[in-house]
C-alpha cells in the first residue's frame, strides 16, 4: 500500500459520506433539544453524543432515564438498541480484520449504520483495495459526520432550553423513534417482530423496572428470526 492510494481512498470515503450530513445534522440537533428538555445539562448532553455516537441508543437512554428506570435497565435497553453493531462488526472482519490493532480500535469507535453500509458496498465493488485503503475509506466516510454529530448536538442543547412547552417537544422523541423504525420494516419478519414488540410491551407493562420491555424485545427477536426461517423454508426469503 502506498500513502497516495490511501489518501485517495480517504477522500473517496469523505465524498461518499457527505450526503449523510442531511441525516446527521437534524438528528443530532434534535437529540440536543430533547436531552436538554429532559433536564440534562450541556456537558451531559455532549457526553451522550461523544461517548455513544448512536442516535437511537442515545434517545433510548434519555427516554428510560426520564421514566426513572433503574440504572441497569437504562444501560441494558440502550445497549440492546446498539446490538446490531455486533452484526456490522462481524461483517467487517473479512475486510478489516487484518488491520493493525490501533486502527481497529479507532474504526470501532466511529462504526455506525451509514459508514458501515457505504464501506461494505465499496469493498464489494473494489475487491482490489488494500487493507490500508479499506481502513482509509471507512474513516473517510465517518469524517464529515462525526464533527457534525458533536457540533449540532451542542447547537440543539443551546437552543433547546429556550423552546416553550406549547411546542409539544415532548413528542419529538416518539416521532424520531417511529421515523427510525418505519423505514426499517422491510420484510414480513420485521413487521411481525414489531407487532410482537408492541403487544408484549403493553401486556407486560405491569412488570417492575421496565423489565416488560426487555421481555418484549426478546420475544420480538425470536419472532423475527423464526419468521425468517419459515419464509426461507417456503422459498420466499431472498
Amino acid at each position: 500500500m502506498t500513502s497516495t492510494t490511501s489518501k485517495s481512498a480517504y477522500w473517496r470515503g469523505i465524498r461518499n459520506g457527505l450526503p449523510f450530513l442531511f441525516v446527521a445534522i437534524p438528528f443530532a440537533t434534535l437529540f440536543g433539544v430533547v436531552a436538554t428538555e429532559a433536564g440534562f445539562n450541556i456537558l451531559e448532553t455532549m457526553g451522550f453524543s461523544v461517548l455513544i455516537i448512536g442516535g437511537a441508543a442515545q434517545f433510548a437512554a434519555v427516554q428510560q432515564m426520564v421514566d426513572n428506570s433503574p440504572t441497569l435497565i437504562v444501560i441494558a435497553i440502550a445497549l440492546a438498541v446498539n446490538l446490531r453493531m455486533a452484526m456490522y462488526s462481524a461483517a467487517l472482519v473479512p475486510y478489516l480484520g487484518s488491520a493493525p490493532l490501533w486502527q481497529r480500535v479507532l474504526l470501532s469507535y466511529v462504526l455506525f449504520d451509514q459508514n458501515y453500509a457505504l464501506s461494505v458496498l465499496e469493498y464489494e465493488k473494489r475487491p482490489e483495495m488494500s487493507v490500508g485503503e479499506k481502513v482509509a475509506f471507512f474513516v473517510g466516510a465517518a469524517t464529515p459526520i462525526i464533527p457534525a454529530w458533536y457540533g449540532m448536538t451542542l447547537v440543539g442543547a443551546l437552543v433547546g432550553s429556550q423552546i416553550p412547552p406549547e411546542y409539544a417537544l415532548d413528542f419529538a422523541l416518539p416521532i424520531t423513534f417511529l421515523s427510525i423504525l418505519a423505514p426499517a420494516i422491510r420484510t414480513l419478519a420485521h413487521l411481525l417482530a414489531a407487532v410482537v414488540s408492541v403487544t408484549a410491551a403493553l401486556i407486560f407493562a405491569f412488570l417492575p423496572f421496565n423489565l416488560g420491555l426487555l421481555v418484549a424485545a426478546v420475544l420480538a427477536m425470536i419472532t423475527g428470526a423464526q419468521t425468517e426461517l419459515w419464509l426461507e423454508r417456503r422459498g420466499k426469503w431472498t
Partner: protein
Amino acid sequence: MDMNSSETWIVIVAIGIGSFLIRFSFVGLIGDRKLPDWVLRHLRYTPVAVIPGMVAPLVLWPPATGGEPDLARLLAAGAALTIGYVTKNVLASIFAGVGTLYLALYTLNILG
C-alpha cells in the same frame, strides 16, 4: 427525572463503553471466526424488536397529557409511521410527524 449527576455520568459512560465493546467485538477481539447463523438472524431484528415496544406506551399514553390519549399525538405518530414506511426516508418521516403534530394541535385548538 430522579437521577443525580454522578448516576447520569455512570449511565452515559457505561453505555459508551458497552457500545464500543459491541462495535469492537468481532473486528477487534474475535478476529476471523464467523458468527453462527442463528446469532446473526436474531441480531438483525434488534432495532425492530426494541423500538416499537418502547414507543407504544408513549404514543398511547403521552406523559405530557397526564397519560390521557391525545388525538394530535396519535395523528402525528400515524403520519410518521406511514410516510416512513412508504418513502423509507427517516427525514421525510420526521417532517411528516412534526408537521402533522403542529397542524393537529393548531386545528384542534381552534375547534377547541
